[in-house]
Structures are given as C-alpha cells and as structure tokens.
C-alpha cells in the first residue's frame, strides 16, 4: 500500500510537471531566437547587448530571445535542428564547423548580399576571412580567441622577443629535478603547435583543400619543438592543460603559450603579463603565427525573418556592442574600431590579444579540417616519443588525411 501511495504521488508530480509546460511563445511581432554556447560573464554581457537591442527596437516589434546550449551538445543540436527549420534565427559558433554546415546545406545563410562595404571594413581583415567559405561570406565575426605568451612577471621581468631570447630566459628558469620549467605549453597538441607550424610558413591545406601535412616547413617546425624539449630541455613532459595550469599557478612555469581561456584559471596570487609570441630566429626572424578561432554570428538559412536577423547580427558586431562584450564579457571583439576606445585600449589583456591577432592565421573552416586532427595528433605523439622521425610521421599523417579526403569525395 505504501508503494502504491508513492506511485500515485509520483504520477501526480509528473502530471504536474507535464501540465506546467510553458506555453509556446505566441507569434506576436517578430521574435527572433539567438543560440549561443556562452556562460558566466560572456553570457551575461551578451544578454545585456541583446537587451539593449530589444529596447531600441521595441517600436519595430523586433525582440530577440537568447538560449544558451552546452558546448558539447551545441554542434549536434544545430546540425539536427536548423536544416529542418526548427532551429534559431541567429546563432553564434566558431568558424571550424562553418564549412561542414555549408556543405550539408540549408543551415547558414550567405550574407554577401546584405553586406555593405563599410560593414565589411568594420572588422579585423583576418577575422572576416574566417567567415568566408569558397568566396562567399556567411557570417560576421563577433570575437576571436588566439594563443599568446603569458608570463609570470616575478620570474620574467621582460618578455622575450625572439626564440633565441626565449630559450635563454627559459633555460635559466628551468630545474627539471625540482619540477620547474621556463616554458610550458601543450606542444603535443596540434592546435598549439600550429603557431610554430604557421611561423615556419607551413600549413595543413594547399589550394583545392589538398593536404600538405608533410611539407618541409611543417617538418622544420616540429624539429624546433624537439630542440626545445630535448636539447634545451625547457618544457615539461606530457603537458596536459591541467598540468600547465598547476605549474603556472605554483610559479613553476615561468611562461606559457595559451589563450584567453587560461586567464580565468590563473590564481589570484600570480602577477602575470601578456606579450606577443616571440619571433623565430630559426625562420629568419618571422613571427610565430597562432591559429585563431573566430566566433561568428550567422543567420540561419531557414529563418523566416532574415532581414531582421541580419540587423541583429549587425548590431551584435557593432562598436557599441563590442565595447560591452570586451569590457564586461572579457572577450576580444573582431570589431577594429573598439580598440581605439580609451577604456579598451587601456586594457592590457585586450590589447595583447589585439597585437597577437595581427600575425594570427584563421584556422581553416573547411570540413576536411576535422580529418586532420587525429592523424596530426598521432604524428606529433610519435615524433615526441621518438617512435618515428618527423618526416616519416608527417608522411603517414599526410597519407591518412589524403585517404580520408578522397573517401569523402569519392563518387
């Protein structure tokens, strides 16, 4: 009997929950839905920007509603909903999935048609490049994320400008027995390695998206890492991101190559500074060029209110919005003008990323990019563990990627 009562209670609770399903918003006026994967202050600042847009456009009957989606489910959710016309009107996502969605079709709306030249010129040119796929623009860049040099001011008074200086400073600060390192970064992670690879003039795709993993430049770049690890011995083994955070916070890593996500993990006691990645003496003084991830704002292809949606996109990437996103959301806006603003210009962190982005390379937005990660990571591991020579490892990776690319194109 007791169980029966329990069950009745459960059924009632369920019924209650089911009944209280909020009624779907009535289609009065133009309600636009915006999806994003931000949280914490990034989310708060975005919502503030949206609220301001809503206030200004209340008379036109345009209202934007936001929905945060957990990052892990976000891409799948877009792929499942948008092409079936059930998704949002506008969404924010990094450029890495852009090519895939364009190829899959009916997901991202091309916006060249709307785009006046003055809007195009708003942005840091390379961020605009990230929004372009096969000659067509699909979104406006909102923020970018890029790897830069983060150093402990107590240990490194002036950040090194070149790789030679870097090694010199780092060597002094390294004491392997005590677990101290001059430099720490996830050098086995291909994303981080890209700054060296691009610095040496290498890359992953040539024209026509043919893989170029085994190019001489790529081999040279990984030889540079090997030199740092083995000959100079300035880097820790198996550098996972959790480890790097711990080392830096305990003052056991003097310098770190990492991006804005790292700043939130730095302990309050550490006085840190940011500087551009050093230039490479070994590559004739050319700068290290990290990959840049650009979060774009896209109009979804099945949206019923594309014109209004584009107005929202334009507002979100305007100077006014960028300032709020930068100062309150701690983001690096792609809008150039905002860096002339006194408050933003005075912000050392924002400034440092802005400086770094000058030499950054947008990460490829072609769908074939997702086939690169796994073979490239394997190659990096094989090289670093001395299981293979750099050339042989990259040859293998090249073969694997070429095979996958061909597999996708086969008719």
């Amino acid at each position, binding site marked *: 009997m007791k169980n029966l009562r329990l069950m009745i209670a*459960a059924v009632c609770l369920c019924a209650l929950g089911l009944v209280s399903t909020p009624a779907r918003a009535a289609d009065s006026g133009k309600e636009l839905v915006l999806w994003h994967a931000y949280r914490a202050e990034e989310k708060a600042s975005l919502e503030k920007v949206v609220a301001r847009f809503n206030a200004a456009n209340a008379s036109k009957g345009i209202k934007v509603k936001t929905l945060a989606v957990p990052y892990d489910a976000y891409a*799948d959710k877009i792929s499942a909903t948008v092409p079936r016309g059930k998704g949002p009107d506008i969404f924010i996502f990094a450029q890495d999935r852009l090519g895939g969605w364009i190829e899959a079709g009916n997901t991202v709306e091309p916006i060249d048609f709307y785009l006046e030249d003055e809007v195009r010129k708003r942005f840091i040119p390379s961020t605009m490049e990230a929004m372009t796929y096969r000659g067509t623009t699909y979104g406006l860049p909102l923020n970018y994320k890029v790897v830069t040099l983060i150093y402990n001011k107590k240990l490194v008074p002036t950040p090194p400008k070149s790789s030679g200086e870097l090694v010199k400073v780092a060597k002094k600060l390294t004491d392997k027995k005590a677990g101290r390192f001059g430099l720490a970064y996830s050098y086995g992670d291909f994303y981080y390695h890209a700054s060296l690879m691009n610095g040496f003039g290498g890359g992953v795709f040539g024209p026509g998206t043919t893989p170029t993993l085994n190019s001489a430049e790529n081999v040279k770049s990984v030889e540079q890492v090997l030199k740092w690890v083995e000959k100079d011995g300035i880097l820790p083994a198996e550098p996972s991101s959790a480890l790097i955070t711990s080392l830096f916070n305990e003052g056991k890593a003097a310098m770190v190559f990492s991006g804005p996500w790292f700043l939130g993990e730095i302990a309050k006691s550490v006085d840190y500074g940011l500087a551009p990645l050093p230039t490479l003496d070994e590559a004739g003084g050319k700068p290290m060029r990290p990959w840049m991830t650009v979060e774009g704002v896209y109009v979804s292809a099945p949206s019923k209110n594309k014109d209004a949606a584009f107005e929202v996109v334009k507002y979100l990437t305007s100077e006014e919005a960028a300032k709020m996103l930068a100062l309150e959301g701690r983001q690096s806006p792609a809008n150039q003008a905002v860096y002339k603003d006194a408050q933003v210009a005075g912000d050392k962190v924002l400034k440092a990323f802005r400086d770094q982005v000058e030499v950054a390379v947008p990460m490829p937005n072609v769908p074939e990019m997702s086939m690169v990660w796994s073979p490239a990571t394997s190659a990096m591991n094989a090289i670093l563990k001395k299981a293979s020579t750099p050339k042989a490892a990259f040859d293998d990776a090249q073969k694997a990627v070429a095979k996958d690319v061909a597999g996708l194109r086969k008719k």
Partner: protein
Amino acid sequence: MLRSRREGMPHWPLHVVLVGFTLFTIYPILWVLTIAFSGNQSLAIATLPEAPTVMDRLRAITPWPETWSFSNFVSVMTDQPFAKWMFNSVVVALGTTVLGVFLACTAAYAFSRFKFPGQRTGLMAFLVSQMFPGTLMLIPLYIILVQWLGLGSSRLGLIIVYATTSIPFSVWMLKGYFDTIPKDLEEAALMEGASVGRIFWTIILPLAKPAVAVTALFSFMTAWNEFILAATFMDQEEMYTAPVGLRFFVGGFSQQWGYFAAGSIIVSVPVVFLFLYLQKYLVSGLTAGSVKG
C-alpha cells in the same frame, strides 16, 4: 569479535581485502569531493615541491582540499536555475520510471505467461535492439520525435524516448523474474473468476516487487544521466534537465571543474539515496529472476 565463532577462521584478512578494495573504490570519488569543496576550478593535479619527501608525496596523493569552501555549491545553485533543472530531471526521470516500468511489466508478463507465435522473435528483438550502436541515432530520433510527433521542447517527449530505451533491459529482467513465480496462484485465482488484468495487478506485481524495483532504478538512472538528447530536444533554458545544466561547466575552451564536481555531487545524491533505499531489492531483484527453482 573479528573471529567467526563457528569456523575458527579469522576475519581480519577479509577485512584487509575489503578495506583495500573500498579504498580503491572510493578514491576517485573522494577526488570529486575534494575538487568540489576546494573552491577552485582546476582538475586537481598533485604537484610537488623540490626534493619531495615521502610526506610531501603522501600529501600530494591525499584527496583532501587544502581549504574547505562551499563556494562552488553556492555558485552552482544560484548562478543558474539549477533547482529548476533538478525539478525537470525529477519529473522526467519519474515519468520515465512510471511509463517504462509499466510498459515493461505488461510486455514481460505476456512473454512470461502466454504462449503465442512470435514470442521468441519478439523477445529476441528486444535484446537485439540493445546491440545497435547509437552513434547515428540522434537525427532519426529528432525527426521522429520533433518533426513527426511534435514533441520538441516537452518533457513528455523526453519521457517517451527514455522509457523506450530502458524497455529492453527491463523486459528481460522482469520476464526472468516472472518465470520464477509459480503459476498455481494465478490458476487458483482464475478458477475463482478473476480476470487476467486483476491477477496481474493484485498477485503478480506485488510478488515481483524486487525486480520491479530494480527495473525502476534502471529506468530512473537512464533518464537521470542522459544529456545529449535532452540538450537537443529542449529549446528553452527553463526546460533543460540537470545533466544538461552540468555540461555548461565543461566543454569548449574553459573548464570549470569545481562547479562541475559540485554539480555532479548534487546530481548524484538522489541516485545514491535511491540505491540505498532499494538495496535490499537490488540484490534479490537482479538475480532471483534468473535463479530458476
């Protein structure tokens, strides 16, 4: 005390083994607790000072926060509508349990008590459905549930999906258990003119309580821990379930392990209590079904 009176074999070696295994078992869980109560966000990795002594090493592997803080728990509960998400989870999980157990009970009863063409095939079909890997299932499921049935952004839709995914296991469990219940009782009741439905509700179900409890627990956990479908089907933030809320803390560029650990503990507590509450059934329910005669 530690000596069994009857056999004279000492119990202490057993305790040594048990304590060893228990430590092995709870050690990772203690780390989760440590991270949750540390007030920090990093996935704790023990680093050592120069020339570490044994004590230093011991400290490094002890899951005990350096400072205790509830800030992670407070942030998790207050910065987002976590309570609302927990409520959604409770509704969905209970709904799944009720629906899943009901469907599984009726089906299992038929498989156990009736003889009919297609019986073996049907039972096999239930087992076989467990074997197809679900990597490509998301989009077909989305099409059926949201496009065809129009159950997007509703708890009912989730309940239906979860209940169906939990049915195969439940049917197998319950059928095994029903098989062990002697048929004399039902026959007697039948003689007295009771209907099959009545027999099922008043005789069989109460007897099968342990197995029902186990399947209920399984159905509950299926719904309680699932994340990707819930995140895909729900289009309003207030409709998310707790696991969806949890995943906000990890993934993407920055991971807030402290929040995630604290959230995990909040989410696990009901399940742990359910386990404790159902323990006595758990042991008999899982097995008695298969121990025939």
